[in-house]
């Protein structure tokens, strides 16, 4: 230990630092400034950027001792006298902040970049330089577009010789109006200041730290675990092994196949075998190294083929299935007559596809703290599904549901990757119970990759047939997905790969079969666009191929086959509003499709694709009669409406969405609304942030609650003022009758309402209508509403290296009604960024069951310079049942962009992409083959 004197944000600190401690650790753990985030610890994400003596540095790879005598500036120092720095204001105004985890690093990087760009007068050169300057900072939410706008805007402002009067900054809650007004998230200011607390930022007094020992084998029996040497280490408080918490769990009631710590055997390399609670992270890690485990490796199953086959003499991964193989789930549905469909089709196309697994890549690693007190267990954790975690914890800890409290702090992104109950959450709960102290855990980026639950690697053969006029006659899909070691959402994923092909096109003869297999790899689960991203890719590629076969414009072919609004699909999905045509038309117009396609220079190409997605599942995961979402409102003497909801804002903006809805119904400003979500002690149940359900379901529950409150207020006023209830208007913080004889301020109305009664609490709910057919499997993919959309992508392919650059994406998405257009755009831009990654660079690569690229350097998320120019259009169709007409906007948009890119590559090179990510090498090889064939 060495004492250092370091000035952080102008304050002198005298701190003891260990010789090889990082600056990030010192700032967060010793100076207590948690605005500086840690995303990778390896210099590959930029989240930890701070300024040292004015220079931007990555604090995760800077030794603390180097900064002895230095002045460090962290995000917390930027706002002065309660006022944000202008750059921070622009981040807020432009909507550049979603989950906000990358924001502190982004802002500081931009701040150190800006002065050098002042002389850049050319707008496009400025944008290019901003992109370059930010290219070491990963953002997984925004697609960078709004961040770049904010930074370029700032540079322009500071470059201007004359001070142009930009309108003064308005905090989000001061922006007037409700539905349809673009606004930043309510908490954007807090995030941009570095004041929003994420799970690892909340440090409880007296906490112990937890670290895990993970299996080095993919499939092995655990013969013996010896913790004796580790246990006697100074600072070690408890070491847990699997037998202590043998309770099984899993997000779906039908796949409760996982234990928190491996019991008897391990099923993937990286599975937790023991957990240590100790005074510090270092001690816990050192103790893990002292634990001796004796394994007996058994044959591992690593590929889909391996697992489909009979296991022979070998031990299966799970001993549950009827047959002697490792198939987890088989799903099959058939509608119409596919044989007949093939006969009727004049042109058919059949292709096989292969997709690598993907990671969500959220920037905030999982983290949690658990403690026990007189109220039972409390856990503060980065989760998308507080409710399911609540249930899983009660089950495995063997306590009543009433003794578990799950608190969701701010989340640094999820994308499906935080939507299961996780072993680490259960383990810290257990360790805390055993030690009587709060226990903290924070996963490294490698551990996040090992925890996985990402997109399933998949293989599929899909066939389609069309008539000579271009009517789709048949669609048949045969799909196999690689689930990894456990179930997760896999049963749903299996169905979604098939059922979510029954729109957006009319189909009479449609069928699919999906196998999900267990393999000895980290488990797969739900990821943005859940289940149907890969099979959608296949279908949109086939349509492209068929369009060529019948010499029809692929847009025209799609237009011809779209389902109408207010119709049923072949599998009895109820389609309400449907903006497919408008979406496609929009992107055709904006991209110049008709004029430009086929006329581009060599190596460039345009491609199109469409898609659709559910707005929440109509059926709950756990069968019961609870509403899918409940929202409570409480209005007290202070005129403030407290909105409590169990829904989980993970950076997508759902808290703000709830406030907008309440504001719209009651005609009051955001300054009178406070959203509390989610804390399972205080907030009513919502099933969580998955399957794009929150706006539709929690939004509807909020609307229901607000309408009830409105009725309460109306009734109180009717009695007091003796007026006709139908004549009352709620708007602009006033309540007035048509003839304005009654004309009250909000506070006056509140006084009347609360007189002799006090605070008024109301409860609203959403229950999905009964939908769908009565055949087995009819429930899969049923949703009260579906979103639709289209993308056109432009690519530039280097004809000698095969390198693909996606230059532009024009996308349009029918979200029913954009409650907050700024947030919807953000979701779309983020989806198209993520889809670009899946298309061109992201994949999880394995070496014998070991993930090779478990870090942000080798798992290649597109940076600001790899992300195409994104042109987003919002299409509004007003869904009859959505809150103010709204449908989902967070997931569906990712479906069309990936095949659009592949179809653009075909257009540029004549090479049909059948495996993802696109490989430069394959493109070259196939171009050569095509050339030879000519």
């Amino acid at each position, binding site marked *: 230990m*060495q004492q250092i004197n370091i000035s952080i944000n102008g304050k002198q600190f005298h701190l003891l630092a*260990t*010789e*090889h*401690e*990082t600056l990030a650790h010192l700032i967060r753990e010793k100076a207590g400034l948690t605005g500086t985030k840690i995303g990778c*610890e*390896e*210099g*590959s994400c*930029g989240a930890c*950027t701070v300024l040292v003596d004015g*220079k*931007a*540095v*990555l604090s*995760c*790879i*800077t*030794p603390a*001792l*180097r900064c002895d005598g230095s002045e460090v500036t962290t995000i917390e120092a930027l706002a002065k006298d309660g006022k944000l720095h202008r750059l921070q204001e622009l981040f807020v105004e432009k909507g550049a902040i979603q989950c906000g985890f990358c924001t502190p690093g982004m802002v500081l*990087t931009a701040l150190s*970049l800006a002065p050098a760009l002042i002389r850049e007068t050319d707008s496009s050169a400025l944008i290019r330089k901003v992109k*370059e*300057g*930010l*290219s*070491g*900072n990963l953002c997984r939410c925004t697609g960078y577009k709004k961040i770049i706008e904010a930074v370029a805007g700032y540079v322009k402002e500071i470059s201007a010789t004359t001070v142009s009067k930009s309108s003064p900054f308005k905090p989000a809650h001061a922006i007037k109006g409700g539905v349809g007004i673009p606004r930043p998230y309510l908490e954007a200011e807090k995030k941009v200041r570095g004041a929003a607390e994420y799970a690892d930022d909340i440090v409880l007094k007296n906490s112990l730290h937890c670290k895990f020992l*993970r*299996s*080095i*084998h993919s499939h092995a029996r655990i013969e013996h675990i010896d913790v004796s040497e580790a246990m006697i280490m100074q600072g070690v408080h408890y070491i847990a092994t699997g037998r202590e918490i043998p309770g099984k769990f899993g997000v779906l009631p039908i796949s409760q196949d996982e234990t928190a710590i491996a019991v008897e055997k391990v099923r993937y*390399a990286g599975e937790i075998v023991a957990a240590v609670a100790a005074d510090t*992270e*270092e001690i816990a*890690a050192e103790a893990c190294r002292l634990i001796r485990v004796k394994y007996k490796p058994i044959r591992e199953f690593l590929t889909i083929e391996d697992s489909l086959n009979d296991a022979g003499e070998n031990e299966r991964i799970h001993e549950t299935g009827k047959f002697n193989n490792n198939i987890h789930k088989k799903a099959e549905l058939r509608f119409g007559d596919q044989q007949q469909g093939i006969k009727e089709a004049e042109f058919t196309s059949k292709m096989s596809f292969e997709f690598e697994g993907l990671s969500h890549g959220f920037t905030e690693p999982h983290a949690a703290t658990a403690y026990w007190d007189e109220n039972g267990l409390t856990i503060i954790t980065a989760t998308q599904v507080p409710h399911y975690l609540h249930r899983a914890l009660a089950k495995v800890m063997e306590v009543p549901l009433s003794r578990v409290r799950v608190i969701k702090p701010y989340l640094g992104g999820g994308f499906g990757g935080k939507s299961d109950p996780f072993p680490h959450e259960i383990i810290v709960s257990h360790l805390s119970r055993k030690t009587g102290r709060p226990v903290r855990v924070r996963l*490294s980026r*490698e551990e996040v990759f090992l925890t996985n639950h990402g997109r399933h690697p998949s293989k599929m053969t899909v066939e389609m047939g069309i008539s000579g006029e271009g009517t789709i006659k048949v669609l048949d899909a045969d799909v196999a997905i690689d689930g990894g070691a456990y179930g997760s959402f896999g049963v749903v994923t299996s169905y979604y790969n098939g059922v979510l092909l029954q729109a957006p096109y009319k189909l009479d003869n449609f069928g699919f079969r999906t196998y999900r297999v267990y393999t000895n790899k980290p488990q797969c689960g739900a990821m943005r666009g859940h289940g149907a991203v890969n099979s959608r890719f296949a279908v949109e590629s086939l349509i492209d191929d068929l369009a060529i076969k019948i010499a029809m414009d692929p847009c025209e072919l799609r237009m011809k086959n779209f389902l109408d609004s207010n119709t049923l699909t072949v599998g009895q999905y109820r389609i309400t509003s449907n903006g497919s045509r408008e979406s496609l038309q929009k992107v055709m117009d904006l991209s110049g499709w008709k004029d430009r396609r086929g006329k581009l220079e060599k190596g460039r190409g345009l491609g199109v694709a469409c898609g659709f997605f559910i707005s929440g599942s109509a059926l709950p995961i756990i069968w019961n009669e609870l509403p899918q979402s409940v929202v409570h409102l409480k209005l007290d003497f202070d005129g403030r409406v407290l909105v409590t909801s169990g829904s989980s804002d993970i950076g997508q903006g759902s808290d703000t969405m709830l406030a907008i809805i309440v504001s719209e119904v009651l005609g009051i400003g955001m300054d009178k609304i406070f959203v509390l979500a989610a804390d399972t002690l205080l907030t009513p149940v919502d099933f969580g942030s998955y399957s794009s359900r929150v706006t539709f379901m929690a939004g509807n529950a909020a609307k229901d609650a607000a309408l009830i409150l409105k009725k309460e207020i109306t009734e109180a006023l009717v009695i007091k003022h003796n007026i006709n209830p139908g004549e009352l208007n709620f708007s602009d913080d006033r309540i007035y009758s048509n003839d304005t004889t009654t004309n009250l301020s909000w506070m006056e109305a509140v006084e009347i309402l609360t007189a002799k009664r006090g605070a008024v609490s109301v409860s609203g709910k959403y229950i999905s209508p009964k939908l769908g057919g009565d055949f087995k499997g009819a429930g899969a993919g049923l949703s009260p509403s579906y979103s639709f959309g289209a993308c056109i992508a432009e690519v530039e392919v280097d004809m*000698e*290296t095969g390198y693909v650059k996606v230059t532009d994406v024009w996308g349009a998405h029918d979200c029913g009604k954009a409650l907050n257009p700024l947030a919807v755009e953000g979701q779309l831009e983020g989806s198209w960024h993520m889809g670009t990654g899946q298309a061109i*660079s992201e994949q999880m*690569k394995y*070496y*014998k069951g*070991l993930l*090779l*690229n*478990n870090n942000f*350097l*080798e798992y*290649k998320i*597109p*940076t600001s*310079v*790899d992300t195409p120019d994104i042109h987003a259009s919002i299409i509004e169709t007003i869904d009859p049942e959505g809150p103010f007409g709204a449908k989902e906007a967070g997931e569906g948009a990712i479906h069309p962009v990936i095949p659009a890119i592949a179809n653009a590559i075909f257009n540029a090179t004549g090479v049909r992409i059948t495996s993802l990510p696109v490989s*430069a*090498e394959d493109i*070259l090889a196939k171009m050569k083959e095509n050339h030879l064939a000519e």
Partner: protein
Amino acid sequence: MLKGKTYIKASTAEQALSLARENNGRVRYFAGGTDVMVNRFQGNDLADLLIDISEIQALKEVFASDETLAIGSLISLDDLAGHSTVCDHFPVLAEAVKSVASPTIRKTATLGGNLLCGNRCSYFNQSEWWREASGYCLKSSGPVCLASGGSKHCFAKFVSDMAIVLISLNACVELLDFSGTSIKPLESIYTGDGMAPRGISPESIIKAIRIPLNHHISSVYKKLRKRATLDFTSLTTAVSVKKAGSIRIVLGGVHAKPVIVDGKAGDDLKALAAAAVSQSRIVDNDTYSRKYRKDMIIVFLERSFKELQLG
């Protein structure tokens, strides 16, 4: 977590050297630290004594004489790319700098550190847990190379991008070690053995990089990687041509050391490119396949020749 015991800042090269002497050379110099810190995080660098040399001002200067441009080894990559003397003489250096790591890293990373940045392999640059689970590759003291499927020779790839372009410019390094100061061709400090890629004693300090002037060199630099930023090289090529007619081709990322092919105006360019390919030792330790990287050598070199208007 980081392990180890001491961290000392040296204010002169001589002081750093004497600290190294006192500790029998068992030290790790620490310049920007952008490579060292990551290696330490992964448990690949366990040195207990870190000597931070980044504050040695004397090693940050740039001098141009009539014959030589001498660049202090501790200049940050960012400052190097913005240095007018350097850019006037060798614009290709700025271009190469901009292909290294990320803009923020380049503010801290130094030129000297870049030249000695560790060789990389998908089986080696992993956590301790990972290396154990994989059975330890040769470079991690295991029995065989995993990337090649069993070879007894390590070809962890050479990734310093700056070395490639500097060697093409016939740069030398000025070294300080226990026996004093010496000047050597840059390429001579690389062994080609992925296990021990540096041919200099551990206490050696690179003081400066010296590039001969007045050769009227034109150079073309290229780098293959998946993303247009952040990524280490999958193949780096630099081709420099002197007015007097000599051609120097240098490849990075395809061997445990830089691959060098010297030629002259009028040589069969195809033969030069073929020689470069045949000298490379590519193993599957990268996101791109072996075959692809090999094929790209030819594509990159042909493009470079064209841009240099050779042949």
